[in-house]
Every structure is written in structure tokens, then in C-alpha cells.
């Protein structure tokens, strides 16, 4: 009996010891690697390292662009200068601005990004509201067709549309962009219809019912309830639409560029100018024996920086709206 007691004590001590050891080991492990509840220090460190290094790689073209745009010709040729130019060489920017016709191009860009966007956002909100709030025959098919318009390549519809526009005399004018936007077929309209649809579906029906009891009609419901409650969706759609119209060049080139049927419009955008940068440069500064002015990558990069600078400024001021857009609209709802 006595022996048994000792034995028991001994075992107990051992268990406690091993438990203590396991406990402290677990604690260290929890701090460093983490448990299944929380990430540990080492894991956190690894995550930060990955995120920062991938982030650097991600921004590399942008950094390269900005650095190169500041280099003078001697900096470009000097192989010892890699990341830090010997000074800010502003002449690249002045030349690039001259080549790109900066003033009229930037006005054109703003114009073409802003006006169709306003129409597009408003019409898409109307359509999205119609889909979200009302039940009607063929709604599912029609909504599937909305998605369908997003998927079909624009190359199919582009030629008949071009013919139609040239017959109506719209080529080279802003109307070529405004009309489709007005009819909910602007650039990536389907996405915006979808955004508004998702948003309006989430507004409580009680609001509308209460208004209807008070005698509000359909339009009043839309203007007095739907629009004020969907400001976030409007902001997000507006910003994305603006950016996408700004960056769109395929159709812009088709409708405003001077290719094809010899149409030459007075509207130009900054990206169209960037596209023709080299040709424009050579026209403006013809190469001859006496000047050393030749196009180099620094000037081209300066032009590229100029063309994205307005967007970068908009992004950094309003980045909250861009980055939280998906959360705000709740596309992933359900």
C-alpha cells in the first residue's frame, strides 16, 4: 500500500512536470508560430515580408517609370546611375507636355471621362432599380442578357455601331459616347447595373412601402428614397466609370482617332496622344544633324507619367472609396 502510494506520487509529479514543459513549450510556440486561433510572431513576420516584397515587385514598373522620367540624357547613358538620378531633369516633362498637346488633351480626357460617366451612372441606377425593386415577366432572362452584354467581345458589335454612327454623323463627336451611355450600353455598363441592382436589393422594402402608403408614386420613391440611400453606390460607380472611360483607348481611337474614313475630330485625349507619342515627337522636333534632341526613354516615360498623374492624384485622394467599394456595395452578399 505504501509502495503504491509513492509510486502514485512519483507518477503524478512526472505528469505535472511534463505538463508544465508542454505548457511552456506550447506558449512559446503560440507566440512564435501561432495557434489555430491567432497568427504567431514568426508567421506575422513572414506575411509582412511577403506582402512588402510582392508590393515592391508590384510597384516596380511605376517606380521605374517615375525615376526614368527624371533622368537627363547623360544620366541615362551613365550606367552607374540606376535608381537615383543626379537631379530632377524637368526638361523631359516640358518636352513631353509639348509633344502631347497637354492642354487640349487633358481637357479632352476630362471631358470624355466625365460626361458619359454622368449619363451612364444615372441610367444604370435607373435600370438597376427597375430590376431590384419590381417583378415583371421575363425579368430573369433580361437580367441574364445584362450579364451577356458584359461577356460578348465588343469587336462583334463595333463595326455596325461604327457604320451607324458615321451615317448619323456622330463620329468624331462626344455624342458617340453619350448615346450608348444614355441607353445603358456604355463602357462596362453591365457592371454598374449589377452594382446598383445589388445595392437596391439590400435597401429594406419597408421604406418604399411606407412611402407608398403616404401616396408616393414610383418616380418619387426613386428620387426621394432610392437615390439618397444609394449614395455609396453612386460614388463607387462614378469613380470606376470615370477611370475606365479615361483609360479606354480602343473605342476612343475608333470614334475619335483619325484612322479609317479620314475622320478627324477636334477632341483628343491624353492617352491617344501617348499612343502617337513617338510620331508626334518626331514631327515636333525633327531630327537633324544640328540638334541633339532625340526621343529617349526618359521623355517617353515622362509622357507616361503625365498621362497617369491625374488618375494617381484622384486615387490617392479618394482611395478609401475605391478600396472599400466592394464592401460598400456588398456584391458578395448572400
Amino acid at each position, binding site marked *: 500500500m505504501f509502495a503504491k502510494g509513492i509510486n502514485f506520487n512519483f507518477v503524478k509529479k512526472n505528469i505535472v512536470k511534463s505538463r508544465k514543459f508542454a505548457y511552456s513549450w506550447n506558449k512559446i510556440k503560440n507566440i512564435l508560430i501561432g495557434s*489555430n*486561433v491567432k*497568427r504567431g510572431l514568426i508567421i506575422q513576420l513572414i506575411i509582412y515580408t511577403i*506582402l512588402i516584397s510582392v*508590393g515592391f*515587385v*508590384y*510597384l516596380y*514598373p511605376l517606380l*521605374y*517609370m517615375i525615376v526614368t522620367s527624371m533622368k537627363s540624357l547623360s544620366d541615362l547613358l551613365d550606367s552607374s546611375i540606376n535608381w537615383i538620378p543626379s537631379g530632377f531633369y524637368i526638361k523631359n516633362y516640358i518636352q513631353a507636355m509639348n509633344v502631347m498637346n497637354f492642354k487640349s488633351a487633358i481637357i479632352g480626357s476630362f471631358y470624355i471621362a466625365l460626361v458619359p460617366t454622368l449619363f451612364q451612372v444615372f*441610367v444604370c441606377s*435607373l*435600370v438597376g432599380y*427597375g430590376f431590384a*425593386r*419590381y417583378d*415583371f415577366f421575363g425579368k430573369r432572362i*433580361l437580367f441574364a442578357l*445584362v450579364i451577356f*452584354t458584359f*461577356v*460578348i*467581345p*465588343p*469587336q*462583334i*458589335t*463595333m*463595326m*455596325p455601331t461604327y*457604320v451607324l454612327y458615321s*451615317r448619323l454623323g456622330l463620329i468624331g463627336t462626344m455624342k458617340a459616347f453619350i448615346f450608348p451611355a444614355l*441607353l*445603358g*450600353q456604355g463602357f462596362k455598363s453591365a457592371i454598374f447595373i449589377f452594382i446598383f441592382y445589388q445595392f437596391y436589393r439590400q435597401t429594406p422594402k419597408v421604406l418604399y412601402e411606407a412611402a407608398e402608403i403616404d401616396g408616393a408614386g*414610383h418616380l418619387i420613391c*426613386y428620387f426621394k428614397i432610392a437615390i439618397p440611400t444609394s449614395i455609396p453606390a453612386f460614388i463607387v460607380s462614378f469613380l470606376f466609370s470615370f477611370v475606365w472611360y479615361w*483609360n*479606354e*483607348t*480602343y473605342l476612343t481611337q475608333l470614334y475619335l482617332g483619325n484612322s*479609317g*474614313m479620314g475622320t478627324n475630330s477636334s477632341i483628343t485625349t491624353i492617352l*491617344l496622344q*501617348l*499612343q502617337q*507619342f513617338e510620331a508626334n515627337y518626331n514631327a515636333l522636333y525633327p531630327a537633324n544633324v544640328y540638334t541633339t534632341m532625340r526621343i529617349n526613354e526618359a521623355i*517617353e*516615360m515622362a*509622357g507616361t507619367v503625365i498621362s497617369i498623374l491625374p488618375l*494617381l492624384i484622384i*486615387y490617392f485622394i479618394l*482611395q478609401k472609396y*475605391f*478600396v472599400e467599394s*466592394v464592401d460598400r456595395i456588398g*456584391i*458578395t*452578399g448572400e
Partner: protein
Amino acid sequence: MKKNKMDNIKIGKFKIIKVLKKQLPGYLFISPWILGFLIFVLWAMIQSFRYSMSNVVLTPGRIILVNVGFNNYRNVFLQDMSFVQTLLSFFISSILEVPVIVVFALIIALLLNGDLRLKGFFRTLYFLPVVIVSGPVMDKLISQGATTVPIMNTAVITNILSKSLPQWLSNPIVTLFEQVIIILWYSGVQILIFLAALQKVDNSLYEAAKIDGGSAWECFWKITLPTIKPMIFLNAIYTLVTLANSDQNNIITLIYNDMFSAIRGYGFASAMAWMYAIILSIMILLISLMFKEKREGA
């Protein structure tokens, strides 16, 4: 009896009118879109199909279509070798690039999802390219060689790949490595969508799994992935459509150029556009089939 029937009809008519009246506002709200769809999609598609079947002669103010049947389609295959090749390389490179973009976006979203400091900063950083991506800008960056990872030695990879693989497969993989940054730049929107989806995953599921001793790794495969599967599907389609419409895509430049070329013109270009659309829809079908099968198996 007769009267009763009349009543019924009356009620029926009344009902129809009532239902119509109830449905009318909905139709009115979406009427701009319906009109736009009829003009810019349906009419345009029919018209473009007619172009593709005919020889299009443009005269000032009028368009003359001469029906040539499927000649344009045949010519695309027989005359223009570059189109079929470009189409094929687009097909292969998208098959490679779509998974890369989606998986990259998912990994970044998973890393960002935890309780991370500077989360907002990283989100801003990874979303930035979406704002500035455009055809001319990309062209300039690619022509400057600013799109490869500087540390990666692409020359070696290119060399090995081109020796060991057939050209049609090695070329897309080489471009994948050479333009890896540009490809990753397409993942901004997808990261946001994944992040939002990850935050919606029911936390009690994880808690239950943790009580049962599930590791983070198991949680990912058994809980996270099945829950966000619809979002993976959405992102795959979105990625494919963006890649298909990006200015870096050679096919759409080819179609654009042929549209205004003197020999080829609208008919030929329309035939190309239709073939491109068919290939694209096959790819979309493939993606949706992939996701459907798994859903049934689970």
C-alpha cells in the same frame, strides 16, 4: 351559367390589365436599357453576322452587302495564317494566365485577411494598378522592359523552356514570365472581391473547426475554399473577360486593323470577330463546367 362565364372572362381581362399595370413601372425603369440592348447589341449582332457573310462595300452614305456565304470564314483560315495562330496563342495564354491571376489574388487576399496592421495601406497598394492600367501606358512600360521582375533571370528560363517544350507551349509561358508584373496588375479587383468574400465567411464555422482541432491549413481547404467557390468562379470569368478586352490582346488589334484594311474590310473583320467570340464563349463554358462539376461532387 353563361353570365358566370362572362364574369370570369371579365375578371380574367381585369386581372391581365391589373398585372400589366403592376408590371409596367418595372419595364419603364429598365426601358432605356432594353432600347439600348435592341440597338447596340441585338441589331448590331445581327448586322455584324450579315457583314461576316458578305462582301462589304462602303460607298459614301450607303453600304452594299454582297452575299458570299461562309467565304469570309474560310478566308480567315486559308488566307490569314496569323489569325488562327494568334487565336490559338490567346487560348493557351489565357488558360495559363487566368489561374495565375486568380490564385495570386486569392493568396494576397488570404494574407491580408488576418488582423494585420497597415491593412489599408496594402489594400491601396495592391489596388493601385487597376486605376492606371490602360493600353498605351502598358505598351510604353512593356517596350521599356519595366515589366519583368528585375531579380528573375528570364533569359535562363526562356532558354530552358524553349529547348524542352514545343514552341506553341513555350512561347506563352515565356511571356508569362516576361510580363509577370503586368499579369499581376490585372488582379486588383479580384483581390478586393476575395477580401470581401473572406470577411463574409461565417466565423462560427472556424470556431467549431478549431474546437475539433482543425488546423488553419485544414480550415482553408474544408471551410474557406468551398464557401468562396462562387467568388472564384466570378473572378475567373471577370479575369478572362478583362484579358480578352485588354489592349495587349493581339487579336483585337488584328480585327481593328483588318476592319480598315483595303483588301479585307468589314466582312472579313466581322468573321474574325465572330470566331473570336465563339472561342471566348467556349472558354467561358469550360470554366463554368469546371465549377459545376465540383459543386455536384461535393
